[in-house]
């Protein structure tokens, strides 16, 4: 089973890109599974189900979404394998920009859009900087020069990645992206695998439900600004 982690800032076009890739993979008669991670609510699982692919949805609710991801992804991979998926795609949004779901030896994709602003590439951490493939979306809305400047900023923070422009609406570039997916990591289980980068840690009173503001309510792993 080929397994890929796809991540990217909210509303960058992850789901649209994955839907276009699914169409291209289905044209090649492939069986596909998608795991959609989100926080509070998502209807994207219905969009995937409509395409006739296997879907699992995970909502992290009151937990840190990326910690939730990493504690569930192994079981999801086992599920995909047991259901004879030839491709399994995990989709998760990188919400704090410091987290990243990418796993060593597992093909990692980051989706980012041309409209997000020229300084966005440097603001995103390992989710973008350690990805193998960076997909840039919404290129049809901006000029050629702007696309080039944006791509060069992405290149600056992740010079080793393959950078591709994909249009999530028309599907331009999706066929080509799918060709790269055909070379994605082939695995049966995530046993023994490690994350590409540690996740930000927090183990303080607020993690445990504290809501009161004030020095006396803060315990655990706390860091103070210099003021």
């Amino acid at each position, binding site marked *: 089973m080929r397994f890929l982690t796809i991540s990217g800032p909210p509303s960058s076009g992850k789901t649209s890109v994955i839907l276009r890739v699914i169409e291209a993979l289905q*044209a090649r008669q492939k069986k596909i599974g998608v795991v959609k991670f989100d926080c509070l609510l998502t209807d994207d699982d219905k969009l995937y189900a409509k395409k006739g692919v296997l879907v699992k949805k995970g909502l992290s609710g009151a937990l840190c979404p990326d910690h939730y991801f990493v504690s569930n992804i192994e079981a999801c991979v086992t599920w995909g394998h047991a259901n004879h998926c030839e491709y399994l795609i995990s989709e998760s949004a990188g919400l704090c920009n410091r987290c990243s779901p990418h796993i060593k030896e597992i093909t990692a994709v980051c989706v980012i859009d041309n409209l997000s602003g*020229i300084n966005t590439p440097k603001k995103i*951490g390992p989710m973008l*900087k*350690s990805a193998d493939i960076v997909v840039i979306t919404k290129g049809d809305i901006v000029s*050629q020069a*702007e696309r080039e400047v944006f791509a060069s900023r992405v290149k600056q923070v992740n*010079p080793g990645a*393959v950078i591709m422009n994909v249009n999530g609406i028309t599907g*331009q570039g999706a066929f080509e992206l799918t060709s790269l997916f055909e070379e994605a990591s082939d695995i049966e289980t995530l046993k023994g695998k490690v994350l590409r980068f540690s996740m930000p840690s927090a183990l303080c009173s607020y993690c445990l439900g504290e809501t009161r503001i004030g020095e006396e309510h803060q315990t655990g792993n706390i860091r103070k600004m210099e003021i």
Partner: protein
Amino acid sequence: MTDRTLFHKPLSETLADHPYINDFLDSFGLTIELGEKTLADYLDTLDPDTLEDLGLSEEQLRHSLDEFLSGMMALSDPMEKVESLTIIGGHNKSGEAENLELVLKPGEVICIVGPTGSGKSRLLADIEWVAQGDTPTKRKILINDQVPDSKWRFSTEYKLVAQLSQNMNFVMDLSAEEFIRMHAESRLVTDPEEKVAQILQQANELAGEQFEPDTPVTSLSGGQSRALMIADMAILSKSPIALIDEIENAGIDRKKALDLLVKEEKIILMATHDPILALMGDRRLVIKNGGIDKIIESSEAERKNLLSLEELDNKLLALRNRIRTGDTLETI
């Protein structure tokens, strides 16, 4: 491969030769002080905890820096000249063979015509992807009669095709001059100021209405944006192929625009249904049912008609200008 010696030269010298190292470090949230002796010394002093806060590991940073430097060096290498682009036919949506081998040369203008959904985008995508029988049409693309290096597919430095889309909104909050300068810097041109001035001047020659260098790109008119992007593409882009999705007939001298691209020795592919643009082309590829159905060479008779079409067009343009300046059209 990156030249390792730059890691061991005096830091001030390395940064003067490769100023983009500063930008690279800045985009990782790092700053470099001239106090260090060499770049290698600087990397050795980085504190693992600081790096972790920035979402970085030392290994990843070193690796990225190497990749970045070799990419930058490649950018300043002269680009392999594209003397010809060959499209070897595949098949249409019904599986019928296209039976053609089409050679395109720099300076040629090729128009692509056909209704929506006929397969124009797929043809353009086959070229951009330098297809090798691995796309739904099974077409093959050769560069200089050879199966091209895969760098044309993946590298941002060697983009084969620069695409001028119909939509030309800007989202950056910059003046025309700042915007073009930023683009020039990202392409590492040796004389950015000169190129910027050249592009702005050229754009003003193409545009119907003049604009100042400090005009925000977001307030340029449609014609001015098109003029700016065509001048930018001609002068700054290294891509040997220009892909144009229609040039709307408003606020821009389209003949001059095409001439400019032709002069820069680009292969120009243009999806258009405008009679004047179509006749300005050397050939028209007629796309039907996913395949190239017909190739029409612009004939002598068509070229003659082009002259009368241009007259008509100029007449309309003059009327448009009269409307703009508040004139009436009681006599035309």
